[in-house]
């Protein structure tokens, strides 16, 4: 914050030298030119990883789930960790586009498009895991309640079924929300097209958008309503994911703070992923004038906040485990902190609670290398948070004779790698075919030729 007289001057959201024409030219450039070498390298790595994952998954389906590290007593492992991890990643997008919209946070405009795209791909990635974890993905339709001759129904009292509804609702609404926001920009791309086939495709996708006053009027209302509908979804999806654990009676899983704690963690990891991706994207696609340090700083602030929220939950769990006086609760937490999986607990604590503390310093909040490393560490930490929760509560259950250590196999790791490949392949394709920045929203907040209150009389 800079102070001039009795005024606080805030940083411009977009580099003030940019004109409206620059926005179109810069944002559409990756769509209208051939892929660069950098893009190809990224794409080959991503699709290669996807290929490895697919090959291993196919082999796993052929030979059975026994190839994984799962056994008694650890029946949930890396796959469920991945599921929760990817669902969590899918939270920042809708938070940025819906909740920050309702809170009138204008800085969201430059980052909402790519964050939402990320949300959609992350939820798609997450959706793979429960399905392949069944070992028989061809029966995936059994997840849905539908009338059938056998009169078999899903167990409506199981949070696993609630998950099916929560995640599919979230995916549908996020997709609609994203697409509605894309329509005016697709129309801009259409109008720039020279190739006839290209023009035809974007014409169909833009749903006849002409930019009439009536179109805008409807658009604004639709967007506001979808934002209001998505806001409870941001909270509900990860709350219901947390119910998968918390409705059980397993110490370490059953605790009442789980719903808000999972939501905070999801936003935390989602923002970390957005930072990781945008640091790369603004470099590769030359978007530094739109995704400025100010945007990155704000996201780092949110990571600082949500990092401390999950820190609060970790401490509260420890405190209440002690306070409860319940020997099982006390044991499971002592085992987390000092047992065979203590390394995983301390990775989680270090990456999620200690690492974000560097963002108290403004200089570090605005340093690209620091935030990039921090965001990677937070992603790792959040993956291990889920791993810790899942594995440490299972590996030493109520029957000490069955206690065991859990070692994931190359199938676990390979398919995990594949999920990253899946996610990044989609993301890289998205960057090539759709505008990564909401051009019309950025134009609306540009100060080019405008003045606002507070600047009067400057």
């Amino acid at each position, binding site marked *: *914050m800079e*102070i001039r*007289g*009795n*005024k*606080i001057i*805030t940083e411009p959201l977009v580099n003030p030298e940019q004109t409206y024409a620059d926005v179109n030219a810069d944002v559409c450039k990756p769509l209208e030119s051939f892929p660069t070498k950098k893009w190809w390298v990224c794409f080959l790595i991503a699709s290669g990883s996807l290929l490895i994952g697919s090959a291993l998954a196919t082999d796993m389906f052929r030979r059975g789930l026994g190839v994984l590290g799962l056994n008694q007593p650890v029946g949930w492992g890396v796959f469920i960790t991945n599921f929760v991890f990817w669902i969590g990643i899918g939270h920042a997008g809708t938070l940025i586009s819906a909740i920050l919209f309702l809170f*009138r946070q204008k800085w969201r405009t430059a980052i909402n498009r790519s964050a939402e795209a990320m949300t959609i791909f992350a939820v798609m990635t997450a959706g793979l895991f429960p399905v392949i974890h069944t070992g028989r993905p061809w029966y995936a339709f059994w997840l849905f309640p539908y009338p059938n001759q056998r009169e078999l129904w899903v167990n409506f009292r199981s949070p696993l079924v609630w998950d099916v509804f929560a995640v599919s609702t979230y995916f549908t609404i996020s997709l609609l929300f994203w697409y509605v926001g894309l329509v005016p920009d697709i129309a801009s791309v259409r109008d720039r097209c020279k190739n006839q086939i290209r023009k035809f495709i974007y014409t169909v996708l833009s749903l006849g958008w002409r930019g009439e006053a009536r179109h805008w009027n409807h658009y604004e209302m639709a967007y506001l309503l979808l934002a209001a509908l998505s806001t*409870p979804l941001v*909270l509900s999806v990860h*709350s219901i994911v947390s*119910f998968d654990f*918390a*409705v*059980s*009676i397993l110490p370490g899983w*059953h*605790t*009442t*703070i*789980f*719903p*808000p704690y999972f939501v905070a963690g999801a936003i935390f990891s989602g923002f970390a992923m957005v930072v990781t991706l945008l640091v790369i994207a603004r470099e590769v696609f030359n978007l530094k004038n739109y995704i400025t340090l100010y945007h990155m700083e704000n996201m780092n602030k949110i990571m600082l906040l949500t990092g*401390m929220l999950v820190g*609060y*939950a970790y401490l*509260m*769990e420890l405190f*209440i485990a002690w*306070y*409860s*006086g*319940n020997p099982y609760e006390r044991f499971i937490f002592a085992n987390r902190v000092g047992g065979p999986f203590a390394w995983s607990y301390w990775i989680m604590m270090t990456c999620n609670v200690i690492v974000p503390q560097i963002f*108290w310093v403004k200089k570090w909040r605005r340093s690209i290398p620091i935030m990039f490393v921090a965001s990677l560490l937070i992603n790792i930490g959040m993956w291990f948070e889920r791993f810790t929760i899942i594995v440490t509560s299972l590996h030493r259950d109520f029957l000490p004779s069955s206690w065991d250590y859990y070692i994931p196999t190359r199938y676990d790791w390979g398919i995990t790698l594949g999920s990253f490949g899946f996610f990044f392949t989609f993301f890289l394709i998205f960057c090539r075919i759709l505008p990564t920045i909401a051009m019309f929203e950025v134009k609306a907040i540009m100060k080019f030729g405008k003045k*606002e*209150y*507070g600047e009067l009389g400057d």
Partner: protein
Amino acid sequence: MTDTPLHNLTRFEGSRLFKKFLTVLLVIGIGFFAWEMTQNAHRAWANFLINYFYWLSIALFGLFFAALQHITGSHWSVTVRRVAESFIAYLPVSLGLFVVLLFGLPHLYEWTHPHVMETDPILKLKTGYLNTPFFIIRHAGLYILCFVLGGKLVQNSLRQDKENNAHLTVANSRLSAPFLLLFAILYTLAAVDLMMSLAPHWFSTIFGVYCWAGLMYSGLAMLALWVIVLRKKGILSDWVSENHLHDIGKLMFAFLVFWGYIAFSQYMLIWYANLPEETPYLILRTQGPYQPISLALMLGKFVIPFFLLVSRPAKRNQGWLAFCALWFLIAQWLDVYWMVIPAFFEKPVFGMVEIGIFLGFGALFLWSVGTFLRRVNAVAIHDPRIKSALHHHQ
């Protein structure tokens, strides 16, 4: 003073009749408390605790809200922030009441009795936390935080009225971060100490968040009520428009839903798992004589006000918003009642004692905030963001 708004800001002045009215309420409160002490000391202290926690939370909301607005750099809220800051005036009174509460500890908390702690195998394990000296230290910590950091926050804001210095806003946004961080910890502990330890065997990790949701719920309602009163008196009528009321209303609605979410999370998870160490707390409250209270809480704190406040006109109409705010305040009282009373009585108790003691505490709150506002401007007139707050549209 070119960049101050053209308006003259008058000071708040409670009418004589109102002051007399508050005095009467206070006397009623003290009278009922004293009388009930001779009849049923448990009931007297239980009511004292309900109101102590209830009004303390509202006062703490004031600081929390001010800090939150500073740290987020909000523009819209500048015109109503001072009203929230004025809630700090109740905290010294509350500290006095805390000293009184200490005399009631043996009546309220099982864990204050050494023989209980020694004989109960589970409580024995908690002695390190549940003991009177540590209880006082933890609670004193909350007051120290509020008086030191919170006091500085309000002081800077008041200084700005005279000095017209934007640096004070920056200073406050820096102060707000450690304040909020420590507040989260200390308020959680206060919730555990004052409310959760009434049932010393019971535990719930979400409990601090649950109480904080109630703090926001009732605090925003109290803020709305004060703002509307000051508008009616003409003090804030040029400063606070429907758009500001709309924003307060939106926040009230948001925290209504948030409370519903947290309450559902706590209830559903305990109900579903049905563990003997957790579930008695809810069985006591949701089955048997207390069932109507639980139902009233669900309907009165969530379902009905949801529909009262969901529409846009409801949040922009001053009279309707004031009605909703009163509703919220009563609903929050019921929530604290729901947490406290079942710990002491087999059946719900409600009568003049409950009302009288509530009114007595309320009188103290209104008196302290009113006195504060009589001495200071009701708006942070030189806040650098005041202009943009005055032109807040939506």
